[in-house]
């Protein structure tokens, strides 16, 4: 970024700001309104049972997954991966749809209405994922992707942790509407005006510094993509399965993420920011395997600490546990924002990112939600966390074995 400032490459700098702002706002919306707000909407405002809401949310995850893959494939087929302006207009459409869906919430009544409304949210998310992720090849050069992903993660988590003092649907709806309105105005202008800066950004994907992801190797794309989807799925699954249960345990929420004490939330936000910045630096400098080892290792350690804490029946929570959790979450979020683009070219990014995000993120959410509902009635909190810990440890050991038995990746071949 400093290099861009030195060379006064203002269009490129504008591209960085646009991408970071757009992705951070999108992720903030997903973190707060979708992941936390919808459950409150269903249970408290619509009076549905927690299991019914969880089932509906799982349907949302599955539908989003299908729509994202279908739309990613459609973009690839149409060749829109190379058409920056089309992607801007589609993003504008997504933001408008999200405003409409967020605005009409109070008119939704009963479970059928909730399901129809969730289907609308799924369509907006499913279209948004491949469109927004595919803008990475237009706006962020390969060398900068770790840093950009770190800033996106840091901004989204910092805002989510410090701005949201109460995790209620009304609060999330208010914040989301304000943010989306600002976003729609900006995106609307960018989608329809003609400016030399936008023309310059639209051509950037042709530049080798943007076009070819760093993990691309001739003839190995499918295997590598599949491997990374599996690994990211495991990470999402471990995170989601553990956090869904912790979310239902007031001791661990009121003492950390939902603490009335602002300093506690600021501390966790700081851990998220620090974790994101560390991940940004490491993503650019290390191979992907050590990063995954760190992520699984930290998840295993965090859940081990939680299970120790549950066993002692302590009345107060210890901040080191959410701190480590925040660190692990930030690490993998950064990887998720950068890695799909680094496996792609402008032609393949829409489908790759859709496959990556949908199959790993949304499918893991779908399965872990279903499992958490089932376990919530059968397993004690301690046992639940122990199972998650065992899974994290298993994946960690699998990564160690993989690193030991398979050769280190070679540098890319010249194209």
């Amino acid at each position, binding site marked *: 970024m400093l290099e861009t400032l030195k060379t006064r490459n203002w269009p490129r700098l504008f591209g960085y700001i646009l991408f970071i702002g757009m992705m951070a706002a999108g992720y903030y919306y997903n973190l707060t309104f979708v992941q936390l707000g919808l459950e409150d909407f269903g249970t408290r405002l619509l009076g549905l049972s927690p299991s019914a809401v969880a089932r509906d949310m799982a349907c949302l995850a599955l539908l989003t997954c299908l729509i994202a893959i279908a739309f990613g494939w459609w973009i690839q087929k149409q060749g829109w991966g190379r058409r920056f302006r089309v992607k801007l207009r589609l993003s504008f459409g997504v933001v408008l749809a999200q405003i409409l869906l967020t605005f009409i919430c109070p008119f939704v009544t009963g479970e059928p209405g909730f399901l129809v409304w969730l289907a609308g949210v799924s369509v907006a998310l499913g279209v948004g994922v491949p469109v927004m992720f595919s803008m990475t090849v237009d706006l962020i050069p*390969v*060398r900068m992707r770790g840093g950009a992903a770190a800033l996106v993660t840091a901004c989204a988590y910092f805002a989510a942790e410090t701005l949201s003092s109460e995790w209620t649907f009304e609060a999330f709806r208010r914040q989301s509407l304000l943010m989306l309105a600002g976003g729609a105005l900006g995106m609307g202008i960018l989608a329809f005006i003609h400016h030399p800066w936008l023309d310059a950004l639209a051509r950037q994907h042709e530049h080798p510094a943007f076009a070819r992801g*760093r*993990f691309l190797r001739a003839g190995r794309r499918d295997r590598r993509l599949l491997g990374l989807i599996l690994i990211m799925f495991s990470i999402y699954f471990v995170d989601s399965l553990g956090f869904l249960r912790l979310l239902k345990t007031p001791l661990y929420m009121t003492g950390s993420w939902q603490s009335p004490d602002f300093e506690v939330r600021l501390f966790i936000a700081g851990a998220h920011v*620090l974790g994101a*910045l*560390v991940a940004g*630096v*490491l993503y*650019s*400098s*290390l*191979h992907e395997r050590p990063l995954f080892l*760190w992520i699984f*290792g*930290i998840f295993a*350690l965090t859940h*081990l*600490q939680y299970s*120790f804490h549950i066993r002692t*029946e*302590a*009345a107060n929570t210890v901040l*080191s546990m959410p*701190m*480590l959790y925040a*660190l692990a979450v930030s690490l993998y979020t950064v990887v998720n924002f950068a890695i799909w683009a680094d496996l792609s070219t402008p032609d393949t990014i829409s489908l790759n990112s859709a496959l990556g995000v949908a199959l790993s993120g949304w499918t893991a959410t779908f399965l872990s939600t279903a499992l958490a509902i089932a376990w919530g009635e059968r397993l004690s909190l301690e046992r639940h966390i122990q199972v998650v810990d065992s899974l994290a440890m298993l994946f960690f050991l699998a990564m160690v074995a993989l690193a030991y038995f398979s050769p280190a990746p070679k*540098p*890319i*071949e*010249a194209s």
Partner: protein
Amino acid sequence: MKRFPLTFLVAFLSLFLAACGSDGLYRFTLVTEGEHILTQDLTSSLIVTDGSVTLPAGTMLDGSVHILSGSFNVDGHITGDVFFLNGDLTLGPSARIGGDLNLGSGSYHPSPDSVIVGQINTGAGIPLPDLPEKQAPTVWILLLRTLISGSLLGLVATVLIRYVPGAVGRVGEAATHHSLVSGAVGLLVGVVGISLLVTMAYTILLIPVTLLGFFLLGVAALYGWIGLGISAGRLGIRILKRPVKPSAAAFISMLVFMLMLELVSSIPLIGDLLGLSVVLIGLGAVALTRFGLRRFTPAANQNLST
């Protein structure tokens, strides 16, 4: 060299023996929360930080009691002193304290029939051991301390540069050329490593491994400092354009490095942060190069070489 792994193994395994040698050591029972009734005699000191402890009539506690918070109900016999700093202390009719009762703050409810053999000291009257007052070290003492630690590290650096110059060089190279990556890795190693070691200590059984882990973490941090110091020294020598023997250069470099570090750490507000950054960069460089066994090359440079 073949003897090294065996010696190391013996040293490592002998650490586990430490867990067996509890007899003859100072023993205590720590209560941090919950309700506890001591139904049997206890031969150890008792520390109560929170929760509730009851010593019923007919039971004996052979040791002293320290109550930092929480409540302690006594109806039995305590052979040692009782230090009551805060919380709630109740002495029942059959309570007997063999030593002194030292009262700080909190609420104290003695029965008229309870017996205290020693003295009752209240408030500031609690006798404290004669500890020397801690004063801020003067500049000269600080300088002397830094010179001593710098000299010691300098001696270690001299040995390292004599026997493993390549390894130290690689650590220094990673710390100076890739300080951001080293700092990031150092932060992860530091935060996660300390959390892991503390968690292991909770199992009691793994306390020797925890101690070994902290020792290794400390050695890694010092090794990182040495690598960083030697690299900084090489840069200085290159600027001065004077030929100096490698061992002498290593010694002088460490001395100057420690003085510079002390100077930087004394800067108000940011000094500690800068000092911590140097520690993390050194630690990260050691982790990245696996104690200097391999050269660190950023993955981006490898992948984007074409």
